[in-house]
């Protein structure tokens, strides 16, 4: 009996009218957990019932605590007929099960109905008392923390990174059960929602067990997905990276001058300074720290145009592995051995992380991916997970062997996905082959001399690109040159990866989003014939996607891709490929050659002319792009090397000294690199079209940048304004004359137009960058293409203040001078902050309070006046109303007097504030972002994972504004429910937010539509950096605010 769950139903508000006669509702609530149900009293005739129930107590196993969601159902009591359901709230109590996260869930939850959407809100308080359980054979895994974030969470330190964990559970899909024919859509939707909730609970518990087995305490980069296989079942699968995390004791300790340098240094690259360019080893740099910042810099990764996507099922084993590059010398081999031994114990040395602790990533080999086509109706035992487990194992094996071929022992930035159409399913996995530093992979005893020697030899900034495979025995043809940075080791000419740009990578200029888009028609076919057709198409698609990416990359004048994600979607009569990545210019890699066009038939004069015209256009575009993205790599190398140029920067001197030894070789290699031009042969219309499509990609309007990675290289002075959004578009193709070209053009236009729309909509945020742009393509029906985009727009300071440090100093100076004022203001700020999530209590409450305490407004007035000063007009009116209500009076003259009296005070206050009052607009606001951080803020606490699944259905599509109206409302509701859950946990933001699924189906003829959405993220508490110093002492107060709020509302 290891746990007691306690639930209290406080109140409801804005309930729908359930009784037409009285325009009121007689609401009561059922609270269900497992098989136990409690009920509140019926609160008669009210749309804002105050149940104020007793504490309902459930005594349950912790296994159930992990699996089951708390289910709260709001009903309308009906004496004569059956009670009508108003809606439900599912609360995942997992965050309450580990000590560092939330301690209570309390707040207003939207009441959700799968047919009507949100119908009012309910205020609930949930607590869990856990008893210690010493049973070693337990089935639960309470206490293992889960993070969606694909890097080590901000306020933690990775002690050990254990590695890959995966799990998969299968169940019959309620929608396909026989009973579905006789039950209502609502019942069926709810059964599905509940089932998925249960299954994800179970999945999480099982993965937790695996983590405990590995002696870890957390899962980072947790990615859970659903496969709606239809008849054959419903699969929930998850992958993640098991870690042992240590909570950093002082979250505010990023300021310099501290006693524990190693801890400090580790934190810096994560919390403070996402920008690699400004990262320096800091003022207090004992040798140890330097090593931290050095080691990761040395892994040159590599990619070749063909091998990473190589589909051939014959693994290229034996190549590259074992033999260390000559430059690496003995310790490279030593390192290799060590890593190998650390990784060999693991079945799959995979890591779902995309960003790493400094020193973790040594070399990057390139992208590895594998796909396989399966037939779902051939599963012998559909209710058991074995078959799917075997499928995935097969794919992972392939990935592993690809990585080996690249001379790597591990795969980072690993992810898996599926695409299902009828009975055909494409399973895909991809990642980046890499060589890792063994230090984090086992108990940290290895950190001995090896480490240090390694680091001494690894130069700054160029690092991870050096090839991990043997130069003489390359797995694929590629141009190798000496690294442009350290000039000691070999690097490839282009590098593709699925990870984020390492924080210390030396980058020239800015990056940009690069997409390859592709459609291929396929004949409609059944079963095996279909699967064969798809399998045959896949390699061609991969190849073309690659060529496109490569061409576009060159056109941008860049030489590396990060965050590459290639999605292949299968439909009835076509296959779609969409690859997104962020292109950058890595200083360590050679300058990309241009694109040369060669005609096939050089005898035709006009054709020649045409070719040369195009060539000119391409060259112009490259030049323009270089300017746009500020790619002006220092042509220095050749001259600089010999003659020391008096440059003030210490770093560059260091660099030079290292490179001096090897200048001869470099010069030789540089010239070699420059010769390398990319030749595009135009030998048919297809190729022509390719060139055209290259040129049609429009760059974003000025002031806009975009990338699909966490951060944009070259931009570092983010301001705090962020806007996360989801945009969905569906186009219908005209079924006539569908050709590959027409299809490609349609798809290309769809994506381009979507981006244009985004730029237009967000124009008020300029200058800004769209980060983590995530495109998802699906083919819901024959002629429909659906594209879903989720991203976040972040504004940045135009005056690229390179002197971030300077401003920081200035700020602190300012702060010191205004210290007194700050001190005075803080309590006031708190007051305003502690206003409930809805900054304006209902007018009614004011009236009530007014009548009871008309005598005491003096104190209250002080706060309200202050509040009105930083909030806007609206709030000040409300304050005014408040004031007025307190001293009931009439007439206009007196009122104006009040206003006048109030304003000077307010103004005075305003003037005193050194910072603009924008911080106060965050009252009750929950931010959402797909990134793992919030610009200008510091995450102080992780409250647990948010993983929610919703179904919405309508039978009155037209009345709800058509498909657009329906989906718009639904997505807005999903956001609202996520925010409400986060707020109830006491958080103020969701990071690493992702919409994993958005399955939309319509039947306009029947006036029906259905949509399934699955989202996840990490609920966190963040504190603005500007407030940090002031608040740090009073943090506990700040944290419990949401709770107080809950309390206030109830009274």
């Amino acid at each position, binding site marked *: 009996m290891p746990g007691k769950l306690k639930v209290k139903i406080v109140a409801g*508000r*804005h309930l729908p009218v359930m009784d037409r006669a009285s325009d009121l509702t007689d609401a009561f609530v059922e609270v269900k957990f497992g098989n136990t149900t409690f009920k509140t009293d019926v609160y008669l005739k009210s749309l804002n019932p105050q149940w104020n129930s007793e504490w309902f107590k459930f005594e349950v196993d912790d296994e159930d605590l992990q699996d089951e969601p708390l289910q709260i159902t709001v009903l309308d009591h009906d004496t004569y007929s059956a009670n009508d359901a108003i809606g439900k709230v599912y609360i995942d109590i997992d965050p309450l099960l580990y000590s560092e996260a939330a301690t209570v869930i309390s707040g*207003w939850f939207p009441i959700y109905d799968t047919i009507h959407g*949100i119908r009012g809100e309910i205020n609930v308080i949930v607590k869990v008392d856990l008893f210690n359980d010493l049973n070693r054979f337990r089935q639960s895994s309470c206490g293992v923390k889960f993070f969606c974030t694909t890097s080590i969470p901000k306020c933690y330190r990775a002690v050990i990174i254990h590695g890959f964990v995966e799990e998969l559970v299968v169940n019959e899909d309620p929608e396909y059960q026989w009973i579905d024919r006789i039950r209502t859509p609502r019942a069926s939707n709810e059964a599905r929602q509940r089932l998925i909730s249960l299954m994800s609970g179970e999945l999480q518990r099982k993965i937790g067990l695996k983590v405990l087995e590995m002696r870890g305490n957390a899962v980072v980069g947790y990615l859970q997905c659903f496969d709606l296989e239809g008849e054959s079942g419903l699969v929930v699968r998850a992958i993640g990276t098991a870690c042992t995390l240590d909570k950093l004791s002082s979250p505010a300790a990023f300021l310099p001058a501290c006693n524990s340098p190693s801890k400090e240094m580790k934190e810096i690259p994560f919390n403070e300074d996402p920008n690699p360019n400004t990262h320096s080893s800091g003022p207090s740099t004992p040798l140890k720290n330097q090593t931290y910042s050095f080691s990761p810099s040395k892994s040159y990764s590599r990619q070749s145009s063909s091998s990473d996507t190589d589909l051939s099922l014959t693994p290229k084993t034996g190549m590259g592995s074992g033999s260390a590059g000559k430059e690496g010398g003995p310790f490279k081999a030593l390192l290799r051995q060590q890593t190998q031994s650390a990784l060999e114990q693991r079945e799959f040395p995979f890591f779902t992380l995309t960003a790493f602790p400094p020193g973790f990533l040594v070399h990057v080999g390139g992208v590895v991916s594998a796909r396989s086509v399966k037939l779902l109706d051939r599963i012998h035992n559909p209710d058991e997970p074995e078959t799917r487990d075997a499928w995935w194992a097969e794919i992972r094996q392939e990935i592993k062997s690809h990585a080996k071929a690249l001379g790597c022992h591990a795969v980072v930035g690993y992810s898996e996905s599926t695409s299902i159409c009828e009975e055909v399913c494409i399973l895909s996995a991809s990642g980046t082959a890499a060589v890792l530093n063994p230090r984090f992979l086992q108990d940290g005893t290895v950190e001995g001399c090896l480490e240090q020697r390694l680091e001494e030899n690894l130069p700054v900034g160029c690092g991870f690109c050096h090839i991990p495979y043997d130069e003489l025995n390359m797995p694929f043809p590629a141009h190798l040159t000496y690294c442009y940075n350290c000039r000691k080791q070999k690097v490839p000419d282009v590098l593709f990866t699925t990870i984020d740009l390492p924080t210390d990578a030396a980058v020239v200029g800015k990056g940009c989003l690069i997409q390859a888009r592709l459609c291929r028609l396929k004949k409609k076919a059944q079963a095996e014939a279909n699967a064969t057709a798809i399998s045959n198409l896949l390699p061609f698609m991969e190849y073309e996607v690659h060529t496109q990416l490569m061409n576009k990359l060159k056109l941008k004048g860049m030489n590396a891709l990060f965050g590459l994600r290639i999605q292949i979607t299968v439909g009835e009569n076509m296959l779609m490929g969409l690859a997104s990545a962020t292109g950058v210019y890595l200083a360590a890699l050679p300058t990309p050659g241009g694109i040369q066009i060669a005609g096939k038939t050089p005898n035709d004069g006009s054709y020649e002319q045409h070719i040369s015209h195009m060539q000119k256009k391409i060259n112009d575009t490259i030049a323009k792009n270089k300017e746009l993205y500020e790619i002006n790599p220092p042509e220095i190398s050749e001259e600089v090397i010999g003659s020391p140029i008096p440059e003030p920067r210490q770093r560059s001197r260091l660099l030079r000294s290292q490179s001096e030894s090897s200048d001869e070789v470099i010069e030789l290699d540089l010239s070699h690199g420059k010769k390398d031009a990319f030749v595009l042969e135009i030998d048919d219309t297809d190729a022509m079209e390719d060139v055209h499509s290259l040129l049609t990609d429009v760059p974003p*309007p000025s002031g806009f940048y975009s990338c699909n990675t966490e951060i944009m290289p070259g931009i570092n002075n983010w301001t705090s304004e962020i*806007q*996360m*959004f*989801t*945009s*969905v*578009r*569906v*186009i*219908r193709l005209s079924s006539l004359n569908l050709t590959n070209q027409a299809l490609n053009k*349609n798809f290309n*236009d*769809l994506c381009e*137009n979507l981006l*244009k*729309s985004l730029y*237009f*909509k967000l*124009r008020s945020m300029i200058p800004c960058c769209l980060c983590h742009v995530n495109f998802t393509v699906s083919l819901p029906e024959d002629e429909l293409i*659906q594209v879903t985009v989720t991203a976040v727009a972040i504004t940045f300071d135009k005056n690229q203040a390179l002197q971030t440090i300077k401003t920081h100093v200035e700020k602190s100076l300012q702060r010191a001078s205004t210290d007194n004022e700050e001190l005075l203001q803080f309590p006031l700020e708190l007051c305003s902050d502690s206003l409930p999530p809805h*900054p*304006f209590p*209902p*007018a009614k409450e004011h009236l009530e309070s007014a009548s009871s305490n008309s005598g005491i407004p003096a104190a209250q007035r002080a706060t309200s006046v202050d509040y009105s000063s930083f*909030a*806007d*007009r*609206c709030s000040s*009116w*409300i304050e*005014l*109303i408040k004031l*007025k209500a307190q001293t009931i*009076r*009439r*007439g*206009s003259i007196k009122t*104006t007097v009040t*206003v006048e009296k109030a304003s000077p005070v307010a103004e005075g206050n305003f003037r005193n504030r050194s910072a603009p009052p924008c911080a106060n*607009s965050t*009252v009750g*606001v*929950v*931010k*959402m972002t797909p990134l793992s951080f919030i610009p200008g803020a510091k995450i102080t606490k992780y409250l647990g994972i948010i993983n929610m699944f919703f179904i919405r259905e309508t039978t009155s599509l037209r009345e709800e504004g058509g*498909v*657009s*109206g329906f*989906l*718009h409302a639904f*997505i*807005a509701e999903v*956001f*609202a429910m996520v925010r409400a859950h986060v707020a109830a946990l006491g958080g103020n933001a969701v990071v690493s937010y992702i919409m994993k699924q958005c399955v*939309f189906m319509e039947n306009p003829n029947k006036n029906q539509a259905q949509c399934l959405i699955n989202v996840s993220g990490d609920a966190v508490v963040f504190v603005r950096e500007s407030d940090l110093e002031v608040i740090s002492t009073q943090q506990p107060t700040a944290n419990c605010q949401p709770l107080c709020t809950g309390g206030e509302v109830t009274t």
Partner: protein
Amino acid sequence: MTNELDIFVGNTTLIDEDVYRLWLDGYSVSDAVARRVRSGILEQTGATAAVLQSDTMDHYRTFHMLERLLHAPPKLLHQLIFQIPPSRQALLIERYYAFDEAFVREVLGKKLSKGTKKDLDDISTKTGITLKSCRRQFDNFKRVFKVVEEMRGSLVDNIQQHFLLSDRLSRDYAAIVFFANNRFETGKKKLQYLSFGDFAFCAELMIQNWTLGAVDSQVDDMDVDLDKEFLQDLKELKVLVADKDLLDLHKSLVCTALRGKLSVFSEMEANFKPPASGAEDRTPRIPAPQNLSRGLVNVAAKLIHNKDVRDLFVDLIEKFVEPCRSDHWPLNDVRLFLNQYSASVHSLDGFRHQTLWDRYMGTLRGCLLRLYHD
């Protein structure tokens, strides 16, 4: 290729003020797009018409979803579906409840019923405001009216509390509600020169002095209805014109005082302006108070009838404003006259209804001064 579905949902709801205005003004999506194109936005941003169309649709959809909440603004503050910063919420509410001067002049004082709603077509044609916008404005009036009609407490405060409007707009709505409730005639040709502001000013004075709430704010106080008792009592003022002696005395008091003051005034005025009409005009004006007084007192005496309440403004214009205007009284002379006219009643020994007179004339004086312009 057609866009079957096209949506954009932000965690913070995007509000485009220009599109909001177009939506409020009742333009269809295509009209709004056309107007936006004309505004030169395409050139500024390099967007295409298709982008603009999609953007406009998105905003319209958002506004449509918000409209339900705007009908009860406190709901907008408490709802969880749209995350909107407070300043934006205030803007949404304020703009939604804002109205056009031309429209309000058409509807002011009319019963806010289905019948009037049917006339909105005509109003739309006449004013050039789209029918959709007319409907919104009319429904706003009606909604506010319905909510505060039976409520106790200050009218302005009630409106502010339930609709979270700015002080300015709440006062305007108080006037609209007051006029609608008392059905004051404002549409006659004679009244066309008056602005909504003129009426709103009068409404405020009347609410402050002539309603039930004016006497006792603690009582079930309805700012919307005139104090019936007060109207009943106004009959007593009739003695001022019915009693010949009283009338004469009043008249002579006014004339004496006025002559002295006006002479000072006219001399002073002469320094600024050529003494065009001063001396000549005064002679015909002396008997005027008699007629004016009769007019004003008669208006008071009749107010017991609903019909005459409705015609209050017509009467005031006919009985006072027009005669004065035809004699080219400068505003200042009107002020001096009215001040003297109301004040000198206090010196009439035989007159017992001083308070009543002050309650009546105090308001009326303010109104008349406001109404007296071209």
